[in-house]
C-alpha cells in the first residue's frame, strides 16, 4: 500500500512537467512539445510528400531520377544520422543559430516526406490508365486531369499509408531526446534521474501516453478510411 501511495505521489509531483514541461517559464516541453513536433513535421512532410509523389509521376526523366536517388538515400540511413546532420551541420552551414526544435522538425519532415513521396506515387499509379484517358477525352490537360480526376481517387487509396507514416513520425519524435530537445521522452529521463527509484513507473507511464496518442490516430484513420472508401 505504501508503494501505491508513493506512486500516486510520484505522478502528482511530475504530471505537469511531463505534460507541458517548463511552459510557465516560456519553455514548452513534454507531451505538448511532442505533439507540436509531430504536427509540424507531419504537415511539412505531407505537403513535401505530395509534391514529391506528383514530381515522380509528372516530372522529366532527369528530375525523376534525381528524386529517386535522394529518396533511396534518405530511406537507407537511420533517422538518428539525419537528426545529427540537421542538428550539428545546419547551423554551421547556414552560419546562424538554428533552434534544436527546428532542426529536429526538419529531419523528421525530410525522412517522412521520402516515404510519403513513394506512397503518393504508388497511389497515383494504382489509379487505372483509363482515368487518364477519360480526363483527356473530356478535354482536360495532363495537370487538370491529375488535379480533378486522379488525385481525388488516389488520396483515398493513400490514406492508410499516410496514417501509418504519421504514427511512425509520432514515435520518431522521441529521438529528439538524443539532441536534448525537451519533448516527452527527454523530460521523462530528467524525472527518472531526479527520482532514481521508479524507472518502471515513469517510462511505463509515458509509454502509455504515446500508446494513447498513436492508437487514437490509428482508430481515427480506420474510421475515416471506412467512411471514405474508394468507390
Amino acid at each position: 500500500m505504501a508503494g501505491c501511495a508513493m506512486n500516486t505521489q510520484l505522478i502528482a509531483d511530475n504530471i505537469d512537467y511531463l505534460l507541458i514541461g517548463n511552459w510557465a517559464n516560456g519553455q514548452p516541453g513534454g507531451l505538448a512539445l511532442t505533439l507540436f513536433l509531430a504536427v509540424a513535421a507531419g504537415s511539412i512532410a505531407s505537403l513535401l510528400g505530395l509534391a514529391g509523389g506528383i514530381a515522380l509521376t509528372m516530372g522529366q526523366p532527369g528530375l525523376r531520377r534525381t528524386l529517386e536517388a535522394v529518396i533511396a538515400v534518405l530511406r537507407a540511413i537511420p533517422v538518428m544520422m539525419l537528426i545529427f546532420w540537421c542538428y550539428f551541420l545546419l547551423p554551421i552551414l547556414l552560419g546562424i543559430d538554428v533552434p534544436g526544435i527546428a532542426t529536429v522538425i526538419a529531419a523528421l519532415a525530410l525522412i517522412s516526406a521520402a516515404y510519403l513521396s513513394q506512397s503518393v506515387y504508388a497511389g497515383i499509379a494504382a489509379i487505372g490508365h483509363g482515368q487518364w484517358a477519360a480526363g483527356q477525352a473530356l478535354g482536360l490537360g495532363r495537370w487538370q486531369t491529375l488535379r480533378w480526376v486522379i488525385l481525388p481517387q488516389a488520396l483515398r487509396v493513400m490514406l492508410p499509408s499516410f496514417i501509418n507514416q504519421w504514427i511512425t513520425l509520432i514515435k520518431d519524435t522521441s529521438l529528439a531526446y538524443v539532441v536534448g530537445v525537451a519533448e516527452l521522452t527527454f523530460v521523462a529521463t530528467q524525472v527518472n534521474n531526479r527520482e532514481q527509484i521508479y524507472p518502471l513507473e515513469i517510462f511505463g507511464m509515458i509509454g502509455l501516453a504515446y500508446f494513447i496518442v498513436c492508437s487514437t490516430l490509428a482508430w481515427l484513420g480506420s474510421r475515416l478510411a471506412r467512411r471514405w472508401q474508394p468507390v
Partner: protein
Amino acid sequence: MPSPPAWLGHSWLAPQYLGWLGQGLLLTAWLALLVCVLGTLLGIVLTALADSQHKAPRYVAQLFLTAHRNTPLMVQLLLWYFGMPSLLPESALMWLNAPHALALPFGLQLPWPSFEFLAALLALSCYGASFIAGELAAGLNAVPRGQREAAKALGLTALQAFRWVILPQALVIVRRPLLGQYTGIIKNTSLTMAIGVAELSYRSRQVESQTLLTFQAFAVATVLYLALILLWQLAGRSREPAWRGAR
C-alpha cells in the same frame, strides 16, 4: 590554393578516429545480426500464439504486438535499461554487471556482453519481433487453407502442420517484407546510443566531439551505414532466384 570552406574544417580524420568508427560499424553489424535472429524466433512464437485455437494465447500475443508497435522504440529501450535492474534480484544484477567470459573450446573466450548491450538486444528483439510477426501473419494468411487440412488428413498434429507445412510456404511469401524488416533493424540499432552502446552513431558523436570535424565524422558514419545496408540488400537479393525456384 583556395582554402576550404569553414564548415569543412581543415583536416581529415586521423586513423585513430577512423578506427573508432570501424569498431562502431562492427558492433552495429553484430548487434543487428543477433537482433535479426532473436527477433525472427520470437516473431515465429508470437505468430504461432496469435494463430492458436485457444483464447488466452491469442490475447497475450495481441497485447504484446499492440504494446510494442504503438510505443516508441526509444521508450522501450529506456524501460529495459533503467527498469530491468529494479525487477531483478540484487545477486542477478551483481552477476550481470561483473565481467564474465564464456569459455569456448580450444582455449578461446567469448566476453560476456555489457549490461547496456543486453538491454539493447532484448528491446530491439521484442520491437522487431512485433513487426516481423505482422509480416509472418500476412504470409500465413496467404497460404491456402487446404494446405492445413491436407496436413491434418496426413495425421500431422497442429504443431507439426505449422512447422513442416505452413511455415515453409509462408516464409517464401514473406521473404521480401522480411528483408525490409531486417533493414529496419539495422537502422534501429542507432537508437541504442541513447543507453550507451558504442555502435556507429555513438562513435560518430564521439569522434565529432573529439575532433570538431563535424562534417567528416557524420559523412564517414553515413557512408558506412549506406554500405552496410546496400551490402545486406544485395546479399538478400542475390539469393532470390534459388528461393523462387524452390516454390
